[in-house]
């Protein structure tokens, strides 16, 4: 669905490239997390997926269309929706449903069809009750869900979250993640850029970036094997994974599959009862 082919990107006036020689393929229906410290290039990567940034070298193709082709850019942006970090800075109009309608309006869709799309989009993020609320009365988490509804109204095939949870409180973050997981279950391809490693344990695939390069790419269990490498890249593995490693060094035989509290308790308890 999305292919990065030897992509290098250099910001003007920057000393080193923000992305260097990235090769990455995201397949239909995947839920991929991209993690990395500030300045690792993960947000730059996200902005390449819908042609907000164009590669200095190499190509990005979305559903077979290269992002460098200007004629296709609206089609690409309709297929790839991006939710950004700051909930306050991406909603355009004062009233919730009008904001959700903004995307389809840009595509010139007939009013009746926009109405159905808006209603559907609001329902799938669980915000139907807020259709005629003023945006500034919503919490951060609710604003992000409206931002996602606004993207869904464009009927995209790929949802990109560019640190969309970074400014939310834990309950807002949990709601957002639940919404995204539900969308993924219904067939949406998701690319989630985040700093919170604990959010990635449920993904299909985790891509770790450092200094504009991909240093790890695999299932969460595979990636979290490399705790030392993660720490070197200024990332903090989930507390549970750190504990798992400490217990291992004390001699407990815990598997790589241990990523959450339940899994840890599951594997640890039988070991304890044998002592």
């Amino acid at each position, binding site marked *: 669905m999305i292919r990065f082919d030897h992509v290098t990107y250099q910001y003007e006036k920057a000393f080193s490239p923000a992305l260097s020689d990235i090769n990455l393929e995201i397949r239909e229906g995947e839920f991929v997390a991209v993690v990395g410290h500030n300045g690792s290039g993960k947000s730059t990567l996200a*902005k390449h997926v*819908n042609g*907000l940034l164009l590669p200095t070298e190499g190509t990005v193709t979305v559903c077979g269309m290269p992002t460098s082709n200007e004629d296709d850019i*609206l089609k690409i*942006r*309709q297929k790839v*929706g*991006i939710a*950004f970090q*700051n909930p*306050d*800075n*991406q*909603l*355009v*109009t*004062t*009233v919730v*449903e*009008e904001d959700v*309608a*903004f*995307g*389809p*309006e*840009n*595509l*010139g*869709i*007939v*009013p009746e069809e*926009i*109405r159905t799309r*808006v209603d559907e989009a609001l329902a799938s993020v669980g915000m139907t009750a807020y259709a005629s609320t*003023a*945006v*500034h009365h919503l919490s951060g988490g609710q604003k992000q869900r409206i*931002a996602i509804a*606004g*993207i869904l109204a*464009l009927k995209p095939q790929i949802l990109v979250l560019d640190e969309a949870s970074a400014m939310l409180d834990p309950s807002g973050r949990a709601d957002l993640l639940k919404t995204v997981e539900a969308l993924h279950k219904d067939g949406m391809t998701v690319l989630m850029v985040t700093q919170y490693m604990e959010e990635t344990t449920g993904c299909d695939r985790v891509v770790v970036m450092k200094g504009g390069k991909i240093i790890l790419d695999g299932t969460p269990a595979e990636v979290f094997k490399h705790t030392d490498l993660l720490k070197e890249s200024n990332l903090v593995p989930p507390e549970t994974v750190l504990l798992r490693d400490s217990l291992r060094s004390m001699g407990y035989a815990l598997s790589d599959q241990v990523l959450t509290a339940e899994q840890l308790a599951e594997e640890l308890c039988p070991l304890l009862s044998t002592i």
Partner: protein
Amino acid sequence: MRDITLGQFVAGDSFIHKLDPRTKIAMMILYIVMVFLVKEIWFLAIPFAYLVLELVLSKISLRYIVNSLKPIRFLLILMFILNLFFTKGEHVWLDLRFWKLTGEAVLQSFFLSIRIVLLVAGASMLTLTTSPIALTDGLEKLLSPLKFLHFPVHELAMMMTIALRFVPTLIDESEKIRNAQMSRGADFESGNIFKRVKSMIPILIPLFVSSFRKADDLAIAMESRCYHGGDGRTRMHQLKFRKEDVFAILVTLLFVASLIVILVLFK
């Protein structure tokens, strides 16, 4: 505090509230025409009656109208006094040698003051019963013929929409910055005007910086959502004239017509 920004709009579902914003704009224009047609105080009774009718139908409390007049009270008083002094007339009520109080002056002062009160109150009726968003939509539609003269109607309406959306956010933000600077010992409450203006700098600069950042973020988000100007854009909410709109316009025209007849008869 944050709700200042919905303008003076008072939500409601009265007959007036439900009218198309274009109707209400047209009604206000006709009303203003009525007020200006009148050259004698007594005939202001007709636009006044119209205003009262509108007020009753809108179910808006008189208090809001009175509030909307508060900012112009000094102007009103000043104008009243100036006219009292400088209008010449024959019916002298009081002679203080350097200045004569005449009947004409009193009448003229009242006439001009009432006229201003009526104008402001009429304009507030529009903003009290129409949300800024509806007003923007109405203006965009009414001005759309100007597009052919390359007047940026869509861009103007989009700018208004975004401004309305961001005013509450910016008010919040300035409140936060103010609190932060006060915690660092900044003093916004004492000193002369010059000092106070200077003390605002630590609030204004961060506010500007943040506005630029917001503009940047928003532009990227809008672009991502396929925004490409007004060409080929549709709207979910279509403005529609209903029976009630036709009725309201007819009644308004009736008032204008009667006023003209009366003015001609009593010339």
